[in-house]
């Protein structure tokens, strides 16, 4: 099974709340993600999707079960798994280009090389003109572009995104979907990066994902393939297959009655 990229088996995570109650964020999650897949984790807030992502990243240890990425058990964060956070994670004390170079410099890549790579990704996300600016001079959408450019520049083959565009306005969000999909799609089919994208936005998941995994109360309750071609235009999202998926998702979220 060489093309399984991420494999979670019987993964659980519980923690004790301040009032002493035991909270199960994840219980017995089994999930297999193949290399090059674009997977969205969808679920109501508090369902454990962010916890699952943090466990894959290695930021949070599981209470039980196993998480294996690239055939190796995850025990700590590492550069093979890039992460884009919900909140702004761009370092305010580094200029934009230094932020994009950050992962490369952590791995000891020579200055000339990392400047070249950073310039290349800044251009792809449309931020060449602010390479020398401080992050405080950028808008929220531009900061997200910096964060996306940074993880792609670092060359991680697994990208974990935790509601990255949740706080952005609709137009900016749609532009960033295009940026993300373009960067993701540029690899040859066999060398595409594997993406796990957490969102609570059903439409966002349907625009982006190959596969939508639904979580509820710490368990995987559904796993849907999205076969529609890309780019997914407004019309494509209205095809019967897509509408059916949307109904299923909305039902899981408790917004529609099961039928």
């Amino acid at each position: 099974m060489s093309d399984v990229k991420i494999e979670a088996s019987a993964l659980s995570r519980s923690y004790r709340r301040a009032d002493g109650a035991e909270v199960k964020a994840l219980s017995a999650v089994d999930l297999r993600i193949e290399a090059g897949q674009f997977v969205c984790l969808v679920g109501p807030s508090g369902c454990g999707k962010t916890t699952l992502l943090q466990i894959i990243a290695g930021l949070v240890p599981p209470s039980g079960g196993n998480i294996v990425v690239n055939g190796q058990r995850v025990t700590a964060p590492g550069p093979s798994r890039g992460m884009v956070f919900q909140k702004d994670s761009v370092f305010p004390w580094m200029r934009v280009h230094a932020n994009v170079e950050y992962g490369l410099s952590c791995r000891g890549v020579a200055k000339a090389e990392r400047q070249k790579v950073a310039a290349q990704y800044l251009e792809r996300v449309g931020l060449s003109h602010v390479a020398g600016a401080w992050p405080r001079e950028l808008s929220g959408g531009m900061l997200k572009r910096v964060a996306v450019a940074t993880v792609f520049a670092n060359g991680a083959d697994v990208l974990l995104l935790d509601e990255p565009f949740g706080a952005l306005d609709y137009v900016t969000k749609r532009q960033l979907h295009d940026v993300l999909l373009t960067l993701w799609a540029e690899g040859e089919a066999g060398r595409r990066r594997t993406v796990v994208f957490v969102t609570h936005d059903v439409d966002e998941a349907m625009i982006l994902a190959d596969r939508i995994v639904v979580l509820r109360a710490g368990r995987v309750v559904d796993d849907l393939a999205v076969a529609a071609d890309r780019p997914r235009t407004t019309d494509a999202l209205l095809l019967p297959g897509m509408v059916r998926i949307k109904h299923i998702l909305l039902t899981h979220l408790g917004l529609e009655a099961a039928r």
Partner: protein
Amino acid sequence: MTPRPGWWSRNWASLAAIAAMAGVWEILSFIYTAEAAPGEPMVPGWEIVFGRTLLSLADYWGGGLGVASVAEGAPPSYTAAVLAIISNSFDTIVRLYTGLIAGAAAGTALGLAVSWSPWPRRVVDSPLQFLRTLPLLAMVPLFQLWFGTEFIGKVAFVAYGIGVIFFAGVANAVRNVPQIFIDNARTFGASRATLYRTVIFPAILPELRATMLLALGTGWGAVLGAEYLGAQSGLGYMIVYSEQFAYLDRMFFVALLFVLYASVSYALFDRVSRRLLDWTAKSGQVSATL
């Protein structure tokens, strides 16, 4: 952006306030004519301070550079007085900044160490929190007995006072670094040392600015305190010596020197730190938008 107003229009109000203070002092010197000792007014006017007082500071010149000292029988001269001010100021400032650099370095290193892993925290944190509660100036005699009244004794005292402030400031600032920056660096594969160099240290700098300002004030107090007891030179020594003879005007003159030096050191620090903290939002933006 509107052009920055000129230096004069930004500062005229402060200058006027300082001039007014000087004027009030001069008026007081005419109204309140009591004397600490015969011929030593409690409130020396400016004509005394920059005349007779300045000349009398020649007493503190120990001789050399072709200018004979008063103790050797030479008459007081303004040259000797200026040399006395320069050499004593130099001694104090060297003691202050040597202690400041040593104390800031040691305090920062210890403050970072307690956040590095649990063991340094257990070993270092409690004793240093305990030391913090000791009143600084009460420790002057102890430091003199331990380290002597020479250069090392004073520098050690200043370094101690500043080190404790820096330790507390750094340890606290590290606790305030947002977790997201640490997580972000770790997902890029930053090693612990890289994390400290590229994230923790720059992230705590804005808070260290406040610590440094506090330390500068404490440092001036500490070096004076150390010089009050047992020093043979320095501005603190000049004050103590003057007090023994009720030379109130000389004490006032030295106090003015302190104000001057402290202001210069604050201004220099402000300029340097502003450059280092260029990445933070410009201060003064609030009043500019109101």
